[in-house]
């Protein structure tokens, strides 16, 4: 099934009187769903990765914990790679893995992995390669710093089950660069993709690819704040917009980026600000486009007392689950100076959209969208909200005239209804007569919003 999404213009031939509308994810009322509530966890709890495998949600997250030195001399901070599970993605358990000693000397905890010798081992992305061999079903990329390391950078680890990890090369696969690295394995292109920063003083995000997670391409700058991003600063020199990181994910035909947009002011310990998540998209992983009017897709909590009022950011944590798209994100309460503090309280929450409904094309009154596709024998489906209006479809031939029997008036319109999956039928008969023919699909909207479109093979 080749789905057509309207997040960007790539699959649109023409459109009239519609606007691209961004829909912030709807937050779960019981947020946060994961907090630091175990003795071995520090105050910071950050994503990480969330996946759904079979009927189980799996979460890899982090905490930074003060732990006795193995020599018993002093304590030091360890970056803990922690693991949690859930049946519904809302109620999470922290299983006793019995693998790593915590600060109390017990192994009855959910610590999956700790790298000795690392003073920092952060921003892990857990990537799943279902057909990988040699115990490489899971690949973890994280950013490491340590006195005994040859140098800092992005390190690799491997696992069969996502719990027992083995170190990859002893030197970083990407030397240096900044801490804010986000990685995916793109099953469509069978490519590892990374989005990394150069250093805190550089405002660009860089894109890199790899076939094996070991040899990476030269990172190239793909995004930097533009004038629209910095408009809020009103020209004041101590106000800056930064892009600290951008988790990316494959979503059907597009790559989505969840751009962390930080609006900060002040310098040094006085630096303060707010961060939310905007949507960016790409068809090739090289050229990235800001989506619509840049309204946040994950919004900060609306009042200062909420747990995620200050900063929100995604991890490698977008999960397609039936009729929903579920996001997990880290949140931090709005507290003055939080950005400059080394320790702050963060938790993990969840939010979701109905399937494909992150971005839509909406018409107030009459509007139209035209796209081109190869017809299949089955049915043409749309995901649209026409609860106060209507969406109709016509199939046009190459010169733009309606194919007989497949005009707007011949179709069963979606009228006064909201459907994630509405199948069009035409009085012209079955679509099998058009199979493999290139057709223009003309959708007419009246007070409706269109999210996606696809052909099924159902006859």
């Amino acid at each position, binding site marked *: 099934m080749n789905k057509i999404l309207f997040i960007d213009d790539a699959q649109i031939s023409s459109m009239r009187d519609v606007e691209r509308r961004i829909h912030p994810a709807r937050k779960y009322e019981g947020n946060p769903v994961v907090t630091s509530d175990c003795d071995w966890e520090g105050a910071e709890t950050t994503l990480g990765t969330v996946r759904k495998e079979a009927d189980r949600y799996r979460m890899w997250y982090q905490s930074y914990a003060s732990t006795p030195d193995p020599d018993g001399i002093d304590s030091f901070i360890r970056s803990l790679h922690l693991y949690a599970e859930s049946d519904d993605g809302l109620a999470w358990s922290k299983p006793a893995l019995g693998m790593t000693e915590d600060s109390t000397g017990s192994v009855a905890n959910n610590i999956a992995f700790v790298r000795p010798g690392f003073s920092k081992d952060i921003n892990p992305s857990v990537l799943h390669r279902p057909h990988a061999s040699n115990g490489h079903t899971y690949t973890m990329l994280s950013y490491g*710093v340590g*006195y005994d*390391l*040859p*140098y*800092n*950078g992005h390190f690799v680890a491997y696992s069969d089950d996502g719990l027992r990890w083995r170190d990859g090369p002893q*030197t970083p696969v*990407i*030397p*240096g660069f900044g801490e804010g690295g986000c990685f995916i394995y793109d099953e469509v292109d069978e490519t590892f993709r990374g989005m990394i920063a*150069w*250093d805190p003083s*550089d405002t*660009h995000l*860089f894109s*890199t690819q790899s076939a094996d997670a070991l*040899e*990476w*391409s*030269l*990172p*190239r*700058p793909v995004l930097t704040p533009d004038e629209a991003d910095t408009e809020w600063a009103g020209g004041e020199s101590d106000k800056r917009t930064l892009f600290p990181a951008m988790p990316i994910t494959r979503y059907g035909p597009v790559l989505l980026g969840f751009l962390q947009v930080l609006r900060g002011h002040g310098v040094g310990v006085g630096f303060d600000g707010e961060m939310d998540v905007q949507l960016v998209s790409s068809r090739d992983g090289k050229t990235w486009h800001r989506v619509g009017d840049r309204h946040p897709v994950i919004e900060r909590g609306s009042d200062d007392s909420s747990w995620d009022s200050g900063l929100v950011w995604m991890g490698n944590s977008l999960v397609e689950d039936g009729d929903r798209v579920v996001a997990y994100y880290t949140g931090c309460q709005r507290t003055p100076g939080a950005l400059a503090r080394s320790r702050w309280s963060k938790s993990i929450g969840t939010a979701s959209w109905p399937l494909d409904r992150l971005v839509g094309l909406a018409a107030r009154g009459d509007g139209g969208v035209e796209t081109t596709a190869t017809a299949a024998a089955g049915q043409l489906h749309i995901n649209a909200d026409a609860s106060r209006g209507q969406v109709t479809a016509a199939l046009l031939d190459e010169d733009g005239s309606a194919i007989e029997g497949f005009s707007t008036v011949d179709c069963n319109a979606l009228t006064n209804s909201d459907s994630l999956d509405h199948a069009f039928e035409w009085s012209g008969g079955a679509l099998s007569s058009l199979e493999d023919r290139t057709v223009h699909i003309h959708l007419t909207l009246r007070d409706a919003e269109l999210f996606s479109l696809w052909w099924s093979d159902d006859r």
Partner: protein
Amino acid sequence: MTDRVLFIDDAQVQSMEGLQRCIHPGEKFDFNPVLRCDRKWESGQSMLGTVMKEEGVYRMWYGSGVGQHGDNKGRLWHMYAESDDGIEWRLPSLGQFTDPEGSTRNNVFLDPESRPHQYSNVMSTPRMGRGRRYTLLSFSGPGHYVRFSDDGLNWTEWSSEPVIPRFGDVGFYTYDERDQLFRGMVKQYLQVRGRRRRIQSRTVSADAYDWTLPRPAVIPDEIDDEWTHGDPDKASEIYGIPIFRYGSLLLGFVDILRSTDAMGTLGLNNQGVTDVQLISSRDGQTWERVGDRSRILEMGRRGEWDGGFIRSAKSFVEDGDELRLYYFAMDHPHGAQKKGDWKRAVGLASWQRDRLVGLRADELGELISVPIPAGNQLHVNADASGGQITAELLNEAGTVVPGFERDTCLPFDGDSLDHTIKWRSPASRDNHDENRSVRLSLQDAEVFSLWFS
């Protein structure tokens, strides 16, 4: 003639005993510096750049600070000079760009109004085809840019985007004819033993615009830091490494900054003097420090024009029996003055052929080379003026080849860049088309290279 066996590393040494690897600093020209940027509209700041010799003419591409004040202060313009002997340089009138005096009768070869560049790495690349007989790589602002030219003077920028984003500001490049690859060494800051330091990372490209992710090639190790005696304010950094092909080896001149403000609030680690040491590689990936790391290029004494900060450049020239390195230097340490006030000039140091590094026996010593394709005659570049050298040839099983025994070898007791070893036996004339190891016995002598013809 077979590739020369060089003793800069151990790759072609099967075994040795009683020998030490000696690094020979370049001999500086008595009348250095050979080039100063002292026209009245220049600030005195010079930066190499490239020197190469083509068709009997030395050609130099260098940067010169232009403008004493304001926005131009410290900004480099790119200049071109020529010389017949590499010592007396003339500044040709290229007529391309207007200088601060309003004249185009000057030697400026890149548009001063374009983005400011550092380190003109000019490479002769006829293999790249028409329009690309020369390739220039230089750093500016967001990254490293490439330009092409047919004459080395009129340049076309390949793209307005850098071919290597970031990894600046120091970067040196060479075109390796043997492997038909562009090779680069670019600067990166990494955390090494708890400090953010300059290191140099290697990268390669087939075409000068698609480059691999730079990976650390030379990182300051604990030996580099010994001089600090644990003082947290001090640290060694790898400031830059011009690299080049020399026979079967890749060599690099490592500029090591001995930073004395490593805990500086800005983390810039700017204050300090430099050493220039030698590194070598057989594959361009693994780089080895040579010998005891002693200086291959000595800094001048305090107060001399090159007594504060000394830098090598892409300027190693093989000229007959002479090897030349053009370098730039200043009389005060890096960071001791504001950058715009730096006064730097270009000097010359030289070696005799292959004599950067040798294996020396103060008494008796012996080495056996790895098997190499043999020819009719064995040559050595050696100084045995205080002793002697004899040789014998071994087959691949390690057995002495009849007629090429040490006992029948005529001892060499001179100092020659090319001495042909002779044996008394007539059989010694027939020794080609086999792989042979060479066993050299040295007494109070030093050998720099050997080869068969």
